[in-house]
């Protein structure tokens, strides 16, 4: 019973993390038809900037000593994510991705792979190769006793952030003017353009929005892990699995996919640790074999 509760909690937390990093990826694909490998780098940049800022502003570490109130560290994490998402995101889209947007799906994928390689080293150049441990926001919250199990509080904050970000994304797409424009661009790019919608600008905004989601995931996971080179490599391959399971282009699908993968992996970690990676890709393969476009993927129109 206790173990089941822990598996459930772990699964939920892992799912929140997965959702944060894959929602933006699937959203960008939905709008632009570009699978952005550099999404992992945006996550990494968010994590590095968040951890670095927290370490600089509160050098005392867990004791929270510094000129500022330690509670502000959460705001700092949020600001780090926004900064990365709103500067690096549009930069990548405007300078590089836009140039290959009309060359099918494969060339942009490989272009973003090149950007990914470059950004991976840029992070090493800026922050070095030593791990950054910024656990102040994590340890400040302490832990809570749930059903007889001691569980840290911070992961619930991560879940809250994921739910909030997902809800906000839903609101933006479904309840704002910008969202209406996005939906029309998704439906038909050329007709939208003919109707006077500035499609390239919609692309830039959509890309920035997705980038903010990735950086948010990075910044808020940073206090739970040690930020080291290579974190972006691991995360992007997980995000691929989640988004293909949920159906590329569907944010709701990403949420379901994240929950499935999160719980399955938590169960594997507790009951069959040798297979913690295996189950994720086995699930992905199974679902793709049954539903070739993922759980909530659209139907492809075959053009002659």
């Amino acid at each position, binding site marked *: 019973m206790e173990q089941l509760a822990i598996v459930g909690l772990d699964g939920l937390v892992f799912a929140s993390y997965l959702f944060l990093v894959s929602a933006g990826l699937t959203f960008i694909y939905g709008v632009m038809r570009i699978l952005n490998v550099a999404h992992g780098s945006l996550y990494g940049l968010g994590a590095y900037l968040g951890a670095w800022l927290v370490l600089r502003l509160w050098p005392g570490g867990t004791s929270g000593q510094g000129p500022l109130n330690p509670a502000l560290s959460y705001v700092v994490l949020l600001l780090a994510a926004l900064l990365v998402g709103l500067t690096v995101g549009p930069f990548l889209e405007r300078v*590089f991705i836009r140039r290959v947007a009309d060359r099918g799906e494969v060339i942009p994928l*490989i272009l973003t*792979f090149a950007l990914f390689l470059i950004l991976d080293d840029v992070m090493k150049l800026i922050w070095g190769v030593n791990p950054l441990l910024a656990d102040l926001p994590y340890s400040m919250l302490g832990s809570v006793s749930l059903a007889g199990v001691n569980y840290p509080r911070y992961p619930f904050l991560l879940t809250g952030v994921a739910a909030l970000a997902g809800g906000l994304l839903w609101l933006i797409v479904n309840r704002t003017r910008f969202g209406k424009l996005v939906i029309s661009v998704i439906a038909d790019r050329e007709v939208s353009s003919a109707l006077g919608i500035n499609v390239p600008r919609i692309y830039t905004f959509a890309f920035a929005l997705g980038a903010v989601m990735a950086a948010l995931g990075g910044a808020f996971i940073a206090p739970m892990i040690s930020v080291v080179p290579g974190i972006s490599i691991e995360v992007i*391959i997980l995000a691929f699995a989640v988004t293909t399971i949920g159906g590329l282009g569907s944010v709701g699908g990403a949420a379901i996919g994240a929950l499935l993968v999160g719980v399955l992996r938590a169960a594997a970690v507790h009951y069959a640790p040798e297979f913690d990676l*295996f189950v994720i890709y086995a699930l992905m393969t199974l679902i793709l074999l049954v539903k070739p476009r993922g759980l909530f993927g659209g139907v492809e129109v*075959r053009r002659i």
Partner: protein
Amino acid sequence: MKLLYGRGWLLPGRGWLLVGLFLLIAVAPFIPGWLVFLLTIAFAKGLVVLGVVLLLRGDLVSFGHGLYYAAGAYAAGLALRAGLPVRDAAVLVLLGVVVSTALAAIVGLFLARYRGIFFGMLSVAFSMILYSLLLKLYWLTGGTDGLSVRVSSIFGLQPGAEYLRLAQYYFVLALTVGAVYVAYRLTASPLGYLMRAIYDNEIRVEYMGASVRRAIYRTYLLSGALGGLGGALTAITVGHIAPDLAYWTVSGEFVFVALLGGTGSVLAPLLGSVVFEFVRNYAFKLSPYTWQLLLGSVLLVVILFAPGGLWSIFERLARREPGETAPRKERRWALSWRR
């Protein structure tokens, strides 16, 4: 200048091809050992890239060719670990090719239904499944420690320790020449033309009565076999294998080299592979922390400014006569495909 760029100089017609091959054979004993090793690795990996390129010509990006690369390598490694009595390179390579072809025969059944990004994603999933198994089944594969692959003979010959590297080079070179020729013959066959037609429009191909799935499946088999061949050859050359061979970044590297070389010729992947190994070697020596930055930048430049890869630059240079502005009538290149 006339001499350098005049008619026929840079053109790899059949004659020049033989001259190039002769050079590769004749020069090897006189160049330093590290260079021989680098070329050996470049050719072995070039074969995997050739497999990726065959699929690329049908507009399919296999982002998971590490699957066959690792399968070929581990087939050899596990056979040795299980106590295979014959420690001969040829036997191990044959084993690697058979295993990876069998694997491609199963995986290809599923993959032949997919196109575009979904083909790529499913290939990634399959290769990551193998990666996770190689990583976690410690009792079988040694986990991250990997396995050592030591061969004692090549085709029954037992070269002395000082000639081992050279012998491996000739072994890999011979197999590379053979495999490249087979790949060329296959793509110059009706199957190869069908793949080209699929690249343009697969629905029209179906309307004309050909089976797209069967064409893709057969190409995939060959591609997987090449992957296994490259993997087994790399394993024998390096002498050590690890689960990383199946990781997605390795597969990404193959796609990278495929684009770097271009898809214009069966020789392009080998050219790309040699250039790639050189660039990586020097970049890694010059600045160990920023070699990915350099590789990424090269890839970026190739995608943005030379979409046909290095081969297309080569082709353009060779085709133009001095003082001539319009390209001359196309000529037949040995082992080249014309789009």
